[in-house]
């Protein structure tokens, strides 16, 4: 029994399971936090974030799971993600197979080679990291990714996401982050 589904296979209305994954240091958990906060505080829905990472500060596998729902969320873990944002090859290998058959996957075009993927999954490739370098700093690759996520997923409103980015990033970095967000948003929109 997958906890994400009703017994008849139906998903609750508006229910989303999102997996953000990459390696430690890419800001994966922060991205999950910003997405969850956007849904919870700024879209007024229910959201829960769970995280998993290895003992390493950088370089280990890292993932954030976000569930968004209009109903109360009891089971907090992402078990059948309909949306995946993937920023490393290892993350693709580890988490990729769990995506739902009609799921949505966005990968970092330069860091992930998509070998095998379930039929029916919509795949987009956006160069999050390369685009972040264009903005000036690789550290905002996660925010580029969130821009792309907002453009293609429909899980969180654009307005809520922007508010959440601004409410979360350190003071003085707002402009850099909003630029990064827009870059990712535009790049993904162009693929739709």
């Amino acid at each position, binding site marked *: *029994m997958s*906890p994400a589904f*009703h*017994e*008849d296979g139906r998903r609750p209305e508006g229910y989303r399971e999102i997996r953000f994954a990459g390696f430690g240091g890419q800001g994966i958990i922060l991205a999950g*936090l910003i997405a*969850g*906060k956007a849904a*919870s*505080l700024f879209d007024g829905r*229910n*959201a*829960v*974030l*769970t*995280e998993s990472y290895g*003992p390493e500060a950088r370089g280990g596998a890292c993932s954030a799971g976000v569930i968004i729902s209009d109903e109360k*969320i*009891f*089971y*907090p*873990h992402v078990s059948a993600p309909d949306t995946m944002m993937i920023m490393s090859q290892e993350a693709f290998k580890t988490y990729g197979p769990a995506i739902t058959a009609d799921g949505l996957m966005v990968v970092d075009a330069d860091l992930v080679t998509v070998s095998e993927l379930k039929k029916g999954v919509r795949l987009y490739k956006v160069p999050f990291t390369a685009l972040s370098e264009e903005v000036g700093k690789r550290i905002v690759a996660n925010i580029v990714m969130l821009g792309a996520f907002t453009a293609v997923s429909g899980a969180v409103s654009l307005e809520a996401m922007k508010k959440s980015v601004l409410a979360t990033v350190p003071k003085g970095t707002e402009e850099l982050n909003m630029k990064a967000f827009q870059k990712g948003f535009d790049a993904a929109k162009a693929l739709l």
Partner: protein
Amino acid sequence: MSRASDVLSGEHFINGNTASAEGAIAAGCRFFAGYPITPSTEVAERMSRRLPQIGGTFIQMEDELASMCAILGASWGGVKSMTATSGPGFSLMMENFGLGVMTETPSVIVNVMRGGPSTGLPTLAAQADVMQARWGTHGSCDVIALAPSSPQEMFDFTLRAFNLSERYRLPVMVLSDEIVGHMTEKVVIPPAEGIELFDRRKPSEPPSEGYLPFEPGPDLVPPMANAGEGYHMHVTGLTHDERGYPIITAAAQTKLVRRLCEKIRQNSRDIIACTEMETDGAEVVVVSYGISARTSWKAIRAAQRGGVKVGQLKLDTLWPFPEERVRALAGKVRGFVVPELNMGQMVYEVERCAAGQCRTRLVPHPGGETHDPADILAAIREVAA
């Protein structure tokens, strides 16, 4: 000492450990002594940042024995105090937890449970310290332990733990787990003026020769003077009389230990809290707590869709155990299902209270992850059949 502006009123998207720290601050806690340990470290981290901003004190101690001692000392100094730890650290705190019970010292211990025995699973959840919380210190005593299942409850229950500790004068435990501690959700922190706080009752008389620091009121709880307020006091872990002086006799032991237990038992209705969902007319009741209560709900809904009448008794306080309620339900249902992230602990209490009136079915899990809701569903169906 504490100001309304110290409380972070509003809506936040924060993890359970952070919420616990904010609950402590909202309760008026201004002293934290601890030794960082996964998966509880965020409580200490948050307190280390917040307490200096609001006139409080944060100390990273050399270990958990000292941490527990320090919070007891701070409490006698008149400051609400806490520590946070996990498995191995909780074991080390057990001796001085008993000192806190014996000396009737208000304080709060947050245990974000991880897999054990020993160092076990530092980064992964379990609920295997619930009996240790009850019986882990040597000697006979009654304890209070709360079990939050969400970041909101981490805030609410930590706050309540302080109120209970001040009310009944003992260290109160918050038994969380790695999943609830690290899970991030919306937490609503009410305006400071909307938060009910209980502060320890003070002696009604000024300091005098005949002052009895351990003379109980009608609720069996002695009013508490803080050190430095002019009252003569003697505080010891030895069996003592109302003066606080060691008296090593069976009579003194009987009087003191009976009262320490009775002050909890006699007030258990005020302390015990459960959340009941759809237990009216239920054939099966899932008795669960913490993260397992949330996992269970998924299975309960699935069982209900299959026509089983099943509800939930969520234990918000584990200790004292809600004996009366479980006994009453046992007379009405076919059975209890008890999922817990251990190999069987609270199930013994459920079974004891059911006293053969109905079936009790444990769904054990040694920890490291939550139950698969399918296992709980299977148990519900088995008990309903």
